[in-house]
């Protein structure tokens, strides 16, 4: 699903609400049948760590850790330390076209595109049910963006994971079946 709208209209705030990082003043947010507003902050942390993955405008990578360490750190928090972790991490990075020599470099030394791929690998290795993405392709040119979307979609299909992306980039619409304008959602909510 793609939600599009102009910059500053509240798309990111909406994603933050969904991920439980912001708490609404009223109402409920249901994900997989769980109202996350009702959870304690610790339960929210756990729920987020286990079920939701996201890719942000800023990639939220720890700049001084390398790719592998960034991924391991997250999997440690989500408690999904599967024994096959090491190999699948490598496989995932390679599928995302991030060659081995980059793995041991601090991520701040990587290019923006490479950092983004690390962030995606990290998000998907959690095997989440829901992937929230906030303008993940804003740093890419048209060709790379399409490649990126194709790779992302094939991985998502494999993992049986839904994607909720917000973007102001209308060109992305070609890749989505369900496309909503943010204003319309808000409109419906108010009504």
């Amino acid at each position, binding site marked *: 699903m793609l939600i599009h709208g102009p910059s500053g209209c509240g798309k990111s705030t909406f994603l933050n609400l969904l991920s439980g*990082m*912001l*708490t609404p003043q009223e109402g409920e947010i249901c994900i997989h049948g769980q109202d996350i507003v009702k959870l304690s*902050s*610790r339960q929210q*942390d756990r729920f*987020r*760590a286990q079920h939701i993955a996201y890719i*942000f405008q800023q990639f*939220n*990578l*720890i*700049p*001084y*850790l390398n790719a592998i*360490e960034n991924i*391991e*750190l*997250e999997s*440690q*928090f*989500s408690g999904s330390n599967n024994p096959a972790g090491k190999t699948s991490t490598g496989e995932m990075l390679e599928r995302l076209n991030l060659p081995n020599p980059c793995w041991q470099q601090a991520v701040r030394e990587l290019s923006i595109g490479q950092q983004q791929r690390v962030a995606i690998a*990290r998000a998907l290795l959690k095997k989440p049910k829901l992937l929230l993405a906030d303008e993940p392709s804003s740093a890419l040119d048209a060709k790379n963006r399409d490649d990126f979307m194709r790779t992302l979609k094939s991985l998502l299909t494999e993992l049986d994971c839904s994607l909720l992306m917000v973007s102001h980039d209308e060109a992305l619409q070609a890749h989505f079946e369900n496309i909503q304008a943010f204003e319309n959602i808000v409109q419906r909510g108010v009504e």
Partner: protein
Amino acid sequence: MFIRLAYKSLLNRKESLIISLIALSVSIFVLLGVEHIRLQSKESFAKAISGTDLIVGARSGPLNLLLYSVFHIGSPNNNLSWQSYQEITQHPKVKWSIPLSIGDSHRGYRVIASNQDYFKYFQYGQNQPLQFEQGHAYETVLDVVLGAEVAQRLGYKVGDKLHIAHGIGSSSFHQHDDYSFTVRGILKATGTAVDKSLISSLAGIEIIHDKQLANSLDPSNLKLENSNITSHSITAFMLGLERKIDIFKLQRLISNYPKEPLLAILPGVTLKELWHMMGSLENILRLVSALVLISAILGLLALQMANARERKQEIKLLRVIGASPIYIFSLVQLETLLLTVASMAFGALMLFIALNLGQNFLSGEYGIYISANFIGHETIMLAAWILLAAILAACLPAVQAYRHSLSALKQ
């Protein structure tokens, strides 16, 4: 992973942290160093003499007498006559005596003139007698026995010849060049002032001070037992008594000696006095080093708190990927702990190097024998205290980070 994260996070801020690390290392160095020197000097003082019941010298201060007779520090201001020495040692309660004549030197090392009883009765540590590494006690007037360090430093062996200078200091103007002394024996190391001394016969010292006597000497007959040279005066003497119970009686007797003003001290008691006097100095040193440590830890805290602002982003990142506030708290704690442990390692290393370099200076200038091995019960306890202080202090930035991490996601 947790430790790796803390380590890399520290490394990421190494420019500012290195200064803290150095400050903390230096303060730990000072603290450990002061503590070690304090313990060692206490031990070194306590073992300097043993088995001697009384030390007798011309009347001056008891500390002064102890310092120059046992530690070979400072100089005596008066001698006592040979006659008094003879009379007192003939007292029936006296078991043995060691006469001492101090005031000459060889290349900066003190020359102690005595008789053969020195090797027989002098004891240090826990009633340990002097032992020879090489050779034996002197036989002729112009023989000399070297302390372990003198022999090692100046490279003398048994049979070598050396000159003795009048006065103290390595560049004495007046060298007694007329007679050279022969090294007859080298003592085993004792860890006391004896190591830094040359022990000559009383007669030998008389000769170098008296031209006439020197001229009348028969070079073919220098055997001590044949020599009729007598000293006119000596600096001090040590006494061993038949029964300990008579110490005070004899001390009183010597203090009231009618022919000249004398002073008799109990070495153990005067050592305690000396130690007591140094005690307040030692406490000031400890206080200063504790303050240095506190200021270093405060400096570290200030830095951690100042860094908190630039770390807000980092904390938020960690929170976003799922770190709990407790994790953030522990992370800051662990960082401070890692820094402290690293500082301790550096401080200890610096101390080890400094002790190895400073050992000779301390023993030469102050008669304090310090071992370079400073790891003991007390230093480990001290390290534990430092660590505890660091953990407590680190609570401040850690709580700050914790509180920040609670609200980090809402921003």
